[in-house]
């Protein structure tokens, strides 16, 4: 067990003592944490990055569908980190896993799809555009698209995003074209294009964090098809494990400690963060001193850790004078449909997504719907999950089922819609009062119920998906039932929202906690509204922007 630290030291090329305050301790090595580490080390600061999971190297990457989807080979594990769930705050939560994320170096980008959609200006000003929605705490972001644009561009060039500037005049300005051309189109991509052409809908090559050409010494996608849910053996899918983490470690200023599970951010009597307490590989407590703490544990674990970090000075949890830590939990919704086609599509080959339609990004106000979204065509899962989840419109076992399995696997595609979801104050991550995790810490408790306006939007997208599939030429179209909580969810947003007003938000526009001067919170929790389906690019750009400002504060002695 002790070799883990030695490995870490070898990776980093150096180690930092725990009893001397390092410039920054970063909690989490996902896209946010690893990007903060890369950017802060490039600006000359020393960082210790703590990751609860392990380092998944190439020999631990396999086309193992059972590991990816059935037993948690790379994701959070109910046996270690159980969760509870309820729909309303007055109900008792029952044991159930609701939140899913990759528990490994690189975080969920280890196994993501790689959709790297930018937000558009509307995503930052939903409230001023639409006005309020009853039962939702809709608000504008304290930053604009224009402020974030340079960072979107920097991210695209840092990781090598493949894509094309479409000819849709509703797309926002960009300062540079995509660094890499689009990925090779797949069968689902062609079908999307056929449907979009027939309906007159906007469509274009998908912006993807997957390499279409060699970039920074990494090779392009080999179209293996085991993509969503799987780490990329080729290093072509640009998860933080292949991009931000190696860059940070190569700086010689970053130590990555895996199997390091933080239980508390420690503060002193003056209300400043002094460092973090974590359990190491052997579940021994370690205190790492730091001049500043950067919390990037994801939209569900970040609020949990803040709530666990309560003290006499911060009785309701750290950085929670507003009472909104954990609240406004969002993830993206959607509406979809499956289609069976005359010829073999072979949607299991290549990247999950190669073409998208953002025709419905902003909806006609006359529809009376809040929000919007976009579509791609895909099959999300490989053979087992795809055939197990076959629509129940024929035999589900026996010889005829076996024949259907093959046709369904080779000839079917889904029109997959991705949408906004509203920030509802009672939808929240909190601490379960009874259940403990494997380290004896309070388990994550989720309270969640879809807002009625969201369900109307999902229905609208489901109807458009049916229309899209038919236009693409499907012989048979099957609407996908709209799934409501408690389904498992992966986009974890909004639980430590950004804002100018300390009474209604957790961090300011530079990701500094309103209540703690040397605590910065950067990940999906910072989102004020959900965006339209694909949050990772915005988390990434926010981290680049935050690092710029935080380094400047450090330089001026303002931390």
């Amino acid at each position, binding site marked *: 067990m002790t070799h883990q630290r030695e490995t870490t030291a070898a990776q980093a090329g150096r180690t930092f003592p725990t009893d001397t305050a390092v410039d920054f301790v970063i909690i989490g090595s996902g896209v946010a944490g690893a990007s903060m580490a890369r950017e802060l080390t490039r600006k000359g600061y020393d960082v210790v990055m703590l990751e609860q999971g392990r380092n998944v190297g190439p*020999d631990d*990457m396999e086309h193992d569908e059972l590991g990816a989807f059935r037993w948690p080979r790379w994701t959070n594990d109910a046996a270690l980190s159980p969760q509870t769930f309820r729909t309303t705050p007055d109900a008792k939560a029952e044991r159930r896993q609701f939140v899913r994320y990759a528990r490994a170096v690189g975080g969920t980008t280890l196994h993501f799809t790689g959709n790297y959609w930018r937000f558009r200006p509307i995503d930052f000003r939903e409230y001023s555009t639409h006005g309020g929605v009853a039962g939702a705490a809709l608000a504008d972001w304290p930053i604009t698209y224009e402020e974030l644009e340079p960072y979107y561009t920097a991210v695209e060039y840092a990781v090598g995003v493949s894509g094309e500037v479409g000819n849709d005049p509703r797309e926002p300005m960009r300062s540079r074209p995509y660094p890499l051309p689009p990925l090779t189109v797949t069968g689902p991509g062609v079908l999307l294009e056929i449907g979009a052409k027939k309906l007159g809908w906007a469509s274009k090559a998908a912006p993807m964090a997957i390499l279409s050409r060699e970039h920074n010494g990494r090779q392009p996608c080999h179209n293996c098809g085991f993509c969503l849910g799987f780490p990329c053996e080729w290093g072509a899918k640009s998860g933080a494990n292949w991009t931000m983490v190696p860059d940070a470690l190569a700086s010689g200023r970053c130590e990555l400690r895996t199997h390091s599970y933080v239980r508390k951010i420690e503060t002193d009597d003056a209300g400043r963060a002094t460092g973090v307490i974590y359990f190491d590989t052997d579940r021994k407590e370690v205190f790492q001193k730091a001049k500043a703490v950067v919390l990037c544990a994801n939209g569900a674990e970040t609020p949990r850790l803040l709530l666990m970090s309560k003290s006499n000075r911060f009785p309701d949890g750290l950085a929670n004078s507003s009472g909104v830590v954990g609240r406004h939990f969002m993830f993206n919704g959607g509406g979809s449909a499956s289609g069976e086609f005359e010829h073999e599509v072979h949607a299991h080959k290549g990247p999950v997504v190669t073409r998208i339609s953002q025709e419905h990004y902003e909806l006609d106000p006359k529809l009376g719907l809040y929000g919007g979204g976009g579509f791609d065509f895909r099959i999300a899962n490989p053979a087992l999950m795809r055939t197990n989840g076959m629509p129940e419109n024929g035999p589900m076992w026996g010889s005829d089922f076996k024949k259907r399995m093959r046709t369904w696997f080779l000839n079917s595609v889904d029109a997959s819609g991705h949408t906004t979801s509203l920030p509802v104050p009672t939808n929240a991550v909190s601490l379960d009062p009874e259940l403990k995790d494997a380290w004896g810490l309070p388990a994550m408790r989720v309270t969640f119920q879809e807002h009625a306006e969201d369900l109307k939007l999902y229905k609208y997208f489901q109807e458009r998906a049916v229309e899209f599939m038919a236009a693409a030429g499907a012989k048979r179209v099957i609407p996908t039932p709209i799934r409501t909580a408690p389904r498992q969810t992966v986009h974890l947003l909004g639980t430590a929202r950004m804002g100018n007003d300390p009474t209604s938000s957790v961090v300011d526009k530079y990701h500094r906690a309103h209540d703690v001067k040397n605590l910065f919170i950067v990940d999906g929790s910072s989102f004020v509204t959900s965006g339209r389906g694909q949050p990772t690019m915005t988390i990434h750009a926010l981290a680049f922007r935050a690092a710029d400002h935080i380094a400047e504060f450090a330089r001026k002695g303002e931390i």
Partner: protein
Amino acid sequence: MDDQAQADASIDAAPVSRREFVAGVAALSAVWLVAGAACTRESSWGGDSTKLVHFSPAQAAQVDAISARILPSDDTPGAREAGVVYFIDQSLTGFAKDQAPLFAEGLKSLGETVAKKHGSAATFASLTAAQQDAVLRDIEKTPFFGAMRFATLAGFLSLPKYGGNKDYVGWKMIGQEVVMEHKAPFGWYDRPENQMALLGKVL
């Protein structure tokens, strides 16, 4: 042969062997070479896939017979050729061990149903295919059948190192190739001539 070597050997027929390709990828970055070499596997199963580790021989015979009705051997291989029973047997001591009671109770109850309907000497495995299907149709909506169905599919389509999908017969049956990469065109619709006919251009 350990699990990994077994999986490697099975994939070696592919254009790029898994071992070559992992080595190639690892060599891209010294950082990851170190990381990869020291990486620990947190779990593994498998080994001898023709020895029972959980079921009694009688239980295994019933599970084998049920799985063979869910995915029958007909003009293509089914659960039996894939060794699904060995997969389920191993999984109930591993990642699916929480389901062991469900299987034990389900098999017991199935045995009682068969005895009541066909006489005390009868077992599910001894019935004709038509009789077996009739019995299964009656329990189609039970949690036991649901678990049996998923486990059969999983044993048919998971990596052979888990005990089933022998020689990748399951993957081959549904059209999942045993390769580490694909080249365009992938299917019918993205062939350039079909794109041209359907879209008037090649994307």
